[in-house]
């Protein structure tokens, strides 16, 4: 219940913040009432995170005023903000993985005695759990918890510090639909208790669901503050981008060809030695996009690493056009036509300290056309190729000889696409390809993937963005805990609800079919396509 009292909980006026010549926030206003869920909406780079980092004390304003409960405040550090009752739950949780839940909650508490009082912390955590309906084992080490549970710990942390104002930064990007609903229930319980919640998101469906009011930011400026009743998804999108947004991409139907990538009973271990891919089997056909849906952290990355040949496959087989690749070098995988666009752009896919030419060379330097006299790299040829690719993919750059770290996120992704897709690959493995990109870059990436499909490649698209999977894929596979939950032959036939169940561990076969089609009435296996 939004109670509009005489004084709003939070009032930000005329906020200005500049970084390195870029105006992140330009004369932004924001109000938050008690009991309200106020969403901050905008594309990546619109200034939402900056504004909230200012409110949570991480950044200092260049100019502008912040008033909490009628009192003007100046935040010089996160501690000032915490004292003022602001609790931020960051997108990448601010938790120490090796410490336990209660230790993370206790970290940095102001009124802590010199000696850690474990009992008192756990007791108070228990109170919070009861009051707000959040459940987590206080003794568990954080690294063992699921992402949803870790998020709950982050929320408990803020409530423990008597936060009146909660800021949630893109909280649903790592949750299944069911977990998202649980989170929204928690949020409503929190606002029912009189707190105010600022919700940062770019997912319009959810925004329409949870918000009371919405403030849209674009390119650092505030576009409007509206009541959720007065807007539609489309009008919000238009405000976010500044022009009419087409939601559907022109996806033409294709006839998939033969199986080009075949994975059977794959067992792959993760960095810590645990099995992350558990007897997983998959087929990707020519001229199709196979989407792999699942909450991140369920083995997708290890699976793709193995399919691309950069991680060891312990058991099982990977075949491209019948040719067995397990046990062969990464280069052999590449030679057979597998290209890989990893999720971690700057950590894995590119070397940010090297220049553009060198980054293009990274996955190509061993090829004959780039080698001279067997041991030397033919830099002229590489430079030429780089120039071509940069132009074709419109990579905005200060010069080919400049280090890659100077490129923006979208252009880095384009550079990687240029490199990976330019040798007519037979298989394209793309993991979270549009993460963190703005609308135009996202569109570009998606169109490029469709283009590859139309050219004859088999595309494996891994994403935790269900919308993306549903709109781009011809077929969808779901992974949970490293296992295949099922393959959906027709994406239009499945609901988000069912997808969410699969992502959380229900096998496709376990869905009872209410119409009775495909089941023989004796409880035998239902046909796997819905």
């Amino acid at each position, binding site marked *: 219940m939004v109670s509009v009292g005489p004084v709003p909980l939070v009032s930000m006026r005329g906020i200005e913040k500049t970084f390195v010549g870029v105006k992140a926030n330009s004369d932004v206003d924001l109000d938050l009432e008690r009991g309200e869920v106020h969403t901050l909406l905008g594309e990546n780079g619109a200034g939402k995170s900056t504004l909230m980092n200012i409110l949570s004390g991480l950044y200092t304003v260049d100019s502008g005023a912040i008033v909490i409960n009628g009192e003007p405040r100046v935040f010089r550090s996160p501690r000032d903000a915490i004292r003022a009752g602001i609790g931020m739950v960051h997108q990448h949780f601010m938790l120490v993985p090796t410490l336990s839940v209660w230790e993370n909650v206790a970290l940095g508490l102001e009124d802590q005695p010199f000696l850690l009082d474990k009992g008192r912390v756990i007791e108070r955590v228990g109170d919070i759990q009861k009051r707000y309906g959040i459940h987590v084992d206080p003794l568990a080490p954080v690294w063992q918890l699921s992402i949803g549970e870790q998020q709950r710990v982050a929320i408990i942390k803020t409530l423990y510090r008597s936060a009146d104002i909660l800021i949630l930064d893109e909280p649903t990007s790592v949750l299944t639909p069911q977990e998202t609903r649980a989170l929204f229930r928690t949020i409503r319980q929190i606002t029912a208790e009189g707190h105010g919640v600022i919700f940062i998101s770019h997912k319009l469906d959810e925004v329409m669901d949870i918000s009371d009011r919405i403030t849209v930011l674009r390119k650092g400026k505030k576009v409007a503050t509206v009541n959720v009743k007065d807007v539609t998804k489309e009008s919000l999108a238009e405000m976010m981008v500044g022009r009419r947004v087409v939601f559907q991409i022109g996806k033409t139907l294709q006839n998939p060809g033969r199986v080009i990538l075949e994975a059977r009973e794959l067992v792959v271990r993760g960095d810590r030695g645990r099995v992350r891919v558990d007897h997983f089997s998959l087929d990707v056909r020519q001229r199709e996009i196979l989407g792999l849906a699942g909450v991140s952290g369920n083995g997708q990355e290890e699976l793709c690493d193995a399919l691309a040949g950069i991680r060891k496959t312990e058991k099982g087989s990977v075949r491209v056009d019948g040719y067995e690749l397990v046990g062969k070098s*990464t280069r052999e995988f590449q030679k057979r036509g597998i290209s890989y666009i990893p999720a971690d752009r700057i950590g*894995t896919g590119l070397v940010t300290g090297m220049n553009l030419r060198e980054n293009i060379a990274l996955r190509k330097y061993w090829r004959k056309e780039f080698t001279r006299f067997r041991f030397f790299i033919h830099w002229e040829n590489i430079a030429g190729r780089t120039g071509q690719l940069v132009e074709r993919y419109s990579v905005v750059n200060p010069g080919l000889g400049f280090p890659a770290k100077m490129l923006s996120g979208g252009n880095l992704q384009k550079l990687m696409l240029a490199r990976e897709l330019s040798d007519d690959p037979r298989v394209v493995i793309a993991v979270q390809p549009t993460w963190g990109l703005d609308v135009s870059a996202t569109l570009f990436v998606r169109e490029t993937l469709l283009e590859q499909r139309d050219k004859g490649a088999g595309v494996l698209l891994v994403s935790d963005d269900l919308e993306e999977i549903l709109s781009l894929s011809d077929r969808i596979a779901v992974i949970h805990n490293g296992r295949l939950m099922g393959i959906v032959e027709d994406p239009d036939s499945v609901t988000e609800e069912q997808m969410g169940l699969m992502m959380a561990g229900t096998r496709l076969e376990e869905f009872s079919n209410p119409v009775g089609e495909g089941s023989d009435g004796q409880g035998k296996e239902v046909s796997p396509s819905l």
Partner: protein
Amino acid sequence: MRYRIVLRRRFKTGAFFEGILPVISIVAALLFSGGALLLFGVSPLAAYRAMFRGALGSGYGLSEVIVKAIPLVISGVAVALAFRMKVWNIGAEGQIYLGALASAAAVRFLPSDSQVVMLLTMTVAAIIAGGAWGYVAGFLKSRWNVNEVITTLMLNYVGIHLADYFIYGPWRDPSSLGFPMTPPFPPSARLPLFFGTRVHLGILAAVLLVLLFRLVIRWTRWGFEIRAIGDNPRAAEYAGINYGRNVVLLMFISGAIAGLAGMTEIAGLQGRLQPGFSPGYGYTAIIVAWLARLNPWGIMMVSFFMGVLLVGGDTIQVIMRLPLASVQVIQGCILFSVLGFEFFRNYRVLLLRRERG
């Protein structure tokens, strides 16, 4: 205050900046260590004047600087090569000793009257021995991720003691009257000298290695792989570059080159194997490599400068009765200074007017 200090990250630095920064940091270091010397009861002005005059004031001094620079260049290349891949080879000193030891063994057990054959044998022996010493640390790192800083360092001590064992023991020259050393090498085991100075053929090896270093790093596939691993090992893996194999190969080659430095020292300069024949060249090489920013030309220039420092150090040792340790102090200060000034490589410091708000 109307102004405020802003730090802005730098992405690229020009060649001029790259060149001038080490110079500035050295000057600052000399000032700083001058202060330290003052604290320790030495007049910095007198010390520096004596050093520079001793090193650069005469043709003899200059040739001595070059003599000292040769092992520094060679081991500097060895260290810089490893550092490029972020493999911290602190063991150049031990590898130098092993190289010298193996060369001495070659002289003792495979003597030859032909200078070409003898020197070749010594070179091969030194390379293999130094390489083996590096290989151990490389293997341990690639297989079990054993910290190479500690293993190479421990092997330094082991290598030095190993050399001591032979010098004090079975290889000792009976006619050396109480000073432990091997018998002097036959003429065939000596590197030819230049124009009556003590500058030996090792200078050729030094120059060749610098050129080779630049060639490999910039133009070869292996050089590219080294740079990729050094900058981002995960991305290098993604590129299909095998980390383990490269670490082992790199450490072998790095050790081999350092071993070569040992060989040139005893075959070119000293003519026999004595305990402590290296006044810490392996450690100085680390300073050289870092100061030179792992850059081949930089290594040559910095080695020359270090040579000046060392010859100057000898001079003040004699004239002012200062122990060699003072040079070590100066070296430490230089390293501190270089590290400190690297800050300016990463950030631009701007003074901006505080805006009215």
